[in-house]
């Protein structure tokens, strides 16, 4: 009798842990690092295969706080007249014809209290890869670094960049 009880307690405990792992997994999926996008745009295609430079589309990396996700004018230059049966390109052409903007899901979002400037970092000679990894190998953009405070700080420490709280929290 006692033995059965012991076995059931153990089994219950294992079930709880498995449930726990499931919950962690669910939480992780809700904070997905690589969200689906309205159009299956691929950096592999455009950056690796077509050899476009990042600044062809992200025009403001060295001029502004934001790198900026391109609007459809940039895509239209190539895609407006492109003859293709690819359904994703058709979708894009429909957006272009209707003049409707594509609402991309944001992959990188810092909380409101943290201030980050692309311009400063690009001017300081930082490459996109150091923070975004090699996007030309990502069929779908994902966050390849943690983008947490400790990560920002470890690089600032190494480069003797400012580490006072108010540099990033304003």
């Amino acid at each position, binding site marked *: 009798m006692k033995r059965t009880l012991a076995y059931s307690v153990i089994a219950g405990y*294992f079930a709880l842990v498995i449930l726990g792992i*499931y919950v962690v997994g669910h939480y992780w999926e809700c904070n997905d690092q690589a969200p689906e996008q309205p159009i299956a745009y691929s950096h592999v295609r455009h950056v690796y295969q077509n050899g476009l430079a990042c600044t062809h589309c992200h025009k403001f990396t060295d001029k502004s706080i934001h790198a900026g996700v391109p609007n459809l004018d940039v895509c239209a230059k190539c895609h407006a007249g492109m003859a293709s049966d690819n359904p994703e390109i058709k979708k894009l052409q429909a957006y272009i014809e209707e003049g409707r903007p594509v609402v991309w899901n944001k992959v990188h979002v810092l909380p409101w209290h943290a201030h980050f400037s692309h311009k400063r970092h690009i001017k300081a000679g930082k490459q996109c890869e150091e923070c975004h990894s090699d996007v030309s190998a990502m069929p779908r953009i994902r966050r390849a670094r943690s983008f947490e405070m400790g990560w920002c700080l470890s690089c600032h420490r190494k480069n003797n960049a400012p580490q006072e709280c108010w540099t990033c929290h304003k």
Partner: protein
Amino acid sequence: MGLVNQLTLTPNTQIVQLMDPLVFLMLAFHLFFLGVTTVSIGLSLMTRKPAPAVSQRFLELMAPGRFLWLVFSLLPLAMLTVLYGLYLHGTENPILPFLERIFVLTLLGYLAAAFHQRTGKRFLGALATLILLGSAFHFMATMTLISVPEQWQFRAQRFLPFTFSIQVVVHFAQYLLFSLLLTGVSILVRYFGWPEGRLDPTQPGTSGIKTWGLALTLAPALLHPVVFLWDFGTAHHFAVSWKVFIVGMVAVAFLLPVAIMSLSMLLSNHLRFIIPAAMCSLLVFGLFLNLEQRFQNTANAEQRTVMARTVDSENTAWTNAREAEYAKSAKPDPALGKKIFAERCSACHKFDTKLVGPPYNDVIPKYVDKPDDLMEFIRKPRKINPDYPPMPNQGLTELEVQSVATYLISQVQDNGKEGGQ
């Protein structure tokens, strides 16, 4: 560092495909041997006074004096260093120097263990346990570091690489629990499951080691699930994929029979479940290694793609070189040129109207006398006209380039003649 870099050439296709299973095998051998040796020496020292018979059994379990560890632990460790050299080829990482130092440390630990078994000197045993624990800690820290590429640039100069993440502690805890579990299982299989040299569990002299074996199986099996959960709770977001959660759940599920079976054997004083319990333990160990590999592969997904690409582009360069050789003797084929135009170029080009790219009737005439320049452009398009976006590289073979260039020139010449008539 320099030595390993020289040994590791750029990876080729076969090695890329073989790498994952090879790393898995080497990890399995190394960690199994290291863990069980460390635990058995440590416990042999602890039980020496109160139970000399048990102590002797512990010491004989992995028999470091027989130098099996050279093949089963050090060789895999050396292989791992080379394999990770390939895996991380072309990145700035501190992993290889760490692995080299760990290799030396592990060698020293095993040597101390071997002389401990031969001479029976206690301090050698204690030294061996400490060194092997230390080397295992650094090894687990390095394995964790591989799945945190964002830390690589900050660890290059440090001897101790483990201050970057709580995951190191979690992984070391997992390593310790697996060492205990696998030691327990090894004792059971070696002394009570194996047909040769089997001990009689009813003899008074052997019940001590039997109880140890069962307890060493039961306790880690009960503790480990919590550590698995902790592992997932602290895992870096960018190293996780949904598959690791499934593997993790399966691993915990297979620990349940281990716990139940060892408890049942302990309470009812029989040894019927030794083999199934050992199988389940090994399976869970394998799943754990698979999990660690998945963490590493997800965190380095881009690096792996780039590696596969390097291989591809080297292969293409090689075939293209051969084709160029062949194309010298072969004639450019207008039919092939027409096909390529229809399949690849017509999405962006027409002869008479502007599409994505300029109309051929405007741009080709300047190449009529310079077909080599046209071929060079098709091989490697560069930016020419600011009114147009850049033309993507079409990745054609040498023969295709020559054929389509010849076709375009002949078409434009024909059009020109028609216009002139």
